[in-house]
Structures are given as C-alpha cells and as structure tokens.
C-alpha cells in the first residue's frame, strides 16, 4: 500500500474552520439548526465542528450521533450482519434544519440510508450534507454534498482514511493506493 497524505494536521484544521464559517453563513446563529454525525466515523468530525462552532458563536450547538445500520440497503448482501453502533439523538428533528455530517462521501449509499434514518425522528425542515472528503465521480446514487472539505479524484481500489489525534494519534487524511505491480 502506498500512502499519500491529502490533508495534514494544519490543513485539516484550516478546512474545519472554513467549513464552520460556511455553516454560519447559511445558518446564522444556529437557532433552528442541529448537527447529526453518522456513525461510526462522522461523529469525530462533529466533535471538532461542535468545539469550533461553540468557540466562534459562544453558544451551545445541538449535536447528535446517528447509526444507520438498520437502514442500509446491503443487509444480507454482506457475509455477516452489521452490528449497530449507538444512536443518541435526544431531541426532535421535527421542523429543524439538519446538517448531516460524515467523513468521506463515496458511493452515496450511506447518506441515502442516513436520510431514511433521519426521517424516523420526525420531518425536518431541511437536510443538508457536509463531508470532509468528497471522492468525486464515484457515486452510485444522485447525492451531492452542500459543504465539502476537499474533493479528490480516486480510483475504486483506493481507500481514503480520515484519522484523528484522539483516536489514531495524529490529525490527517490519507489516501492509500495499491502498488501498481499488484
């Protein structure tokens, strides 16, 4: 596997700050807005966004985690059943502006399941999508993000991994490529 760092710690922080300001631009003071991170990896993005937004706006931002296991369309197409992670959305999404957050947008299938899952918490006023990495031209479904950290062109065989200081020891986004002679 060849490794290529797409964003290092410094750039990742800049990107997150920019995304926060983009969010504030369209959501003003977040009075009707909630942020929902998709399990398992989207929730780490939300942790950072929440801290940054609260620092800028000086107020609490409502955030939750959403598990989409039971809403996936590949149940029984995988070898083993998918074990669910925790959902904690202890607020109603009825009539709220919801920002769905995930780390990488690839085929769009997770987001489709996420939309289904969000609707079981009520009927939101609007749903938007924010992703740190958009793997362009790789969609199976007509889904696009409203806020993108960085768009990258990748091959199907490649893998993008978003890593965090708290969990993997360092903030960075890495592109893994199979070596050409494989």
């Amino acid at each position, binding site marked *: 596997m060849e490794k290529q760092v797409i964003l290092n710690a410094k750039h990742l922080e800049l990107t997150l700050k920019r995304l926060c300001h983009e969010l504030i631009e369209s959501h003003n003071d977040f009075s009707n807005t909630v942020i929902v991170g998709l399990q398992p990896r989207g929730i780490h993005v939300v942790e950072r966004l929440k801290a940054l937004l609260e620092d800028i706006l000086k107020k609490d931002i409502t955030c939750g985690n959403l*598990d989409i*296991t*039971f*809403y*996936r369309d590949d*149940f*029984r*197409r995988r070898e*083993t*059943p*998918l*074990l*669910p992670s*925790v*959902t904690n959305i202890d607020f*109603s999404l*009825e009539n709220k502006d919801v920002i769905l957050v995930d780390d990488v947008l690839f085929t769009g299938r997770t987001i489709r399941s996420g939309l*289904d899952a969000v*609707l*079981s*918490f*009520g009927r939101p006023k609007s749903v938007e999508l924010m992703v740190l990495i958009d793997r362009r031209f790789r969609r199976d479904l007509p889904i696009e993000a409203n806020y993108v950290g960085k768009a990258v062109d990748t091959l199907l065989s490649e893998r993008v991994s978003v890593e965090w200081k708290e969990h993997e020891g360092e903030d960075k986004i890495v592109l893994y490529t199979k070596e050409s002679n494989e």
Partner: protein
Amino acid sequence: MNSLSVEHLIGIRDLTREDLDLIFKTADSFKQVINRPIKKVPSLRDITIANLFFENSTRTKLSFELAEKRLSADIINFSASGSSVKKGETLVDTVNNILSMKVDLVVMRHPSPGAASFLSKKVNAKVVNAGDGTHEHPTQALLDAYSIREQLGSLEGKKVVIVGDILHSRVALSNIYCLQKLGAEVMVCGPKTLIPIHMKSLGVKVSYNLKEALEWCDVANMLRIQLERQDVKYFPSLREYSMTFGLTKEILDSLSKEIVVMHPGPINRGIEITSDVADSDQSIILQQVENGVAIRMAVIYLLAAQIER
C-alpha cells in the same frame, strides 16, 4: 462475534454465551428504535414471516407480530382453531403448505415438546420456537434475563428464584439455562409435587419454603399455575397454594433487602402474586413486556441475516 452460532432458535440450551451477548447488544439498539417517534426500520422488507400458533397466546403472539412489523417484514398469522389442523392435517403438511407461499421464517408455538426442533429438520425455513409444550420458551427467557440485566446491571453472581409450577413450565427450563449461562445462580421453589426430581442435576437449588427462597434471592420470578396442563391434582386447592407460595406485600416487606419481582404473564392476581405486589415499584412486569419486543426484534434480525438471497 457478529452472527449467531445457531441456524434456528429452538432452545436456550443450544446457545453460547457469545450468542446471548450478541442478542442483548442488538436488542439494546432495537430498544432505542422502538422509543423513537417512528418505531420502524426497513431491514427486513424482503422477508416474509409466518406466525403459527397451535396453542393459545396473547402476549407472545402480539409481541412477535409487533417485532416483525417494526422490522418491516411481511407477516401472515395462523392459529390452530378454525384451521385444517382440526381436519386432520399433519404439522409438516400444514407448514409446507404455508412455506410454498414463499415464507422465509416461521415462528411457532405448539403444545408438543420438541415440535420446533422437529419442524426445523423438516422444512426449508428458519424456525423460532415461541414455546413448545413443557420444553422451552427461549424468547421469554431472553427477555427475562435482559430485564434483570437492565435492572441490576449484570447477571454475574446474581441469585434468581423461580417460584411456582416448575414441572409444567417451559419458561422455568429456558430461564434456568439462560441464567446459568450468564453466570447467575438459580433456585426453584414450589410444592414438592410441582418440582421435577431431576432439578438438582441441572445445578439448581431447590427450596420448598417461599420465605427462605426470597431471603436468598435478588430476583423472584413468579410463575402461573398451569391448570390447563395438569391432568391430576398436584395440591389440595388454589387457596392453599396461594397461602403457601403466593407472593404478598407482607412477605416482601418482611425481607431484609429489596428484591426485584418478575412475572412472565398472564398473571393470576391473588394466586401466585397479589395485586399490590404486581403493581408495586419492585415489580418489572411491564418492562418485561416492552423488552420482549426488542428481544424478539433482535432474534429475528440476527436469524434473518443468515438467509441467503
């Protein structure tokens, strides 16, 4: 571990400790789901389930039906009264007729012990035992253990007494297997005539004195006297039974510690348990019913995951 070691749920006896943990973990997620505004997930939308009840049931049948609907499965219901069974059709024929309508999973309650196991060997579908005679009632034991775990944090080292008609109870047998696999100690208590002689070989303590049993335990599971399964008289009168083995507020208050009271239903108020105990804060009877749906969702979800497309 993220799949079950068994292909059908016939009895707790066949399950491993890992299976139990997996079912509980999955049930935790489903319990969240059934407390949402929209209590339904689309996981099983391409699965058809037949509920075959050859014996009366209210709670279990409703609970299974609701669990299946919450998973978006298509369901058909069948009860023995008013069916071809009365006209002399065999079990395998009845079930195969239903399966030819492309059913993937069968939930069955039957008065004969071993019926579910027999069926699982004869038909090409997943089988979930919803009670087979006096043998096992696995989902009841799972939801009982799950409710205790929710109440006390874990079952490791906990003491559970099962009181009443042990001889005719599938709930008792499944509970014994389940609680022991989870590290709990089990005692049975009741009139000598209603306690099978082989109990000690299961590693279960036996007591014929309710007060003594309750002093020992953390949890008391009160069973109903199954008059419909009793062909001879096992005790002089129901009144005498309830005076000797009925759980009353006075006995409960006289204990040195507060215990958890359970009942698998249906309750015969005033016989095995008085109304004030059944409705008290120590009783978790209604939590058991709620957890029943989550547990059954988990079991069906995990079995359905094994069905090949």
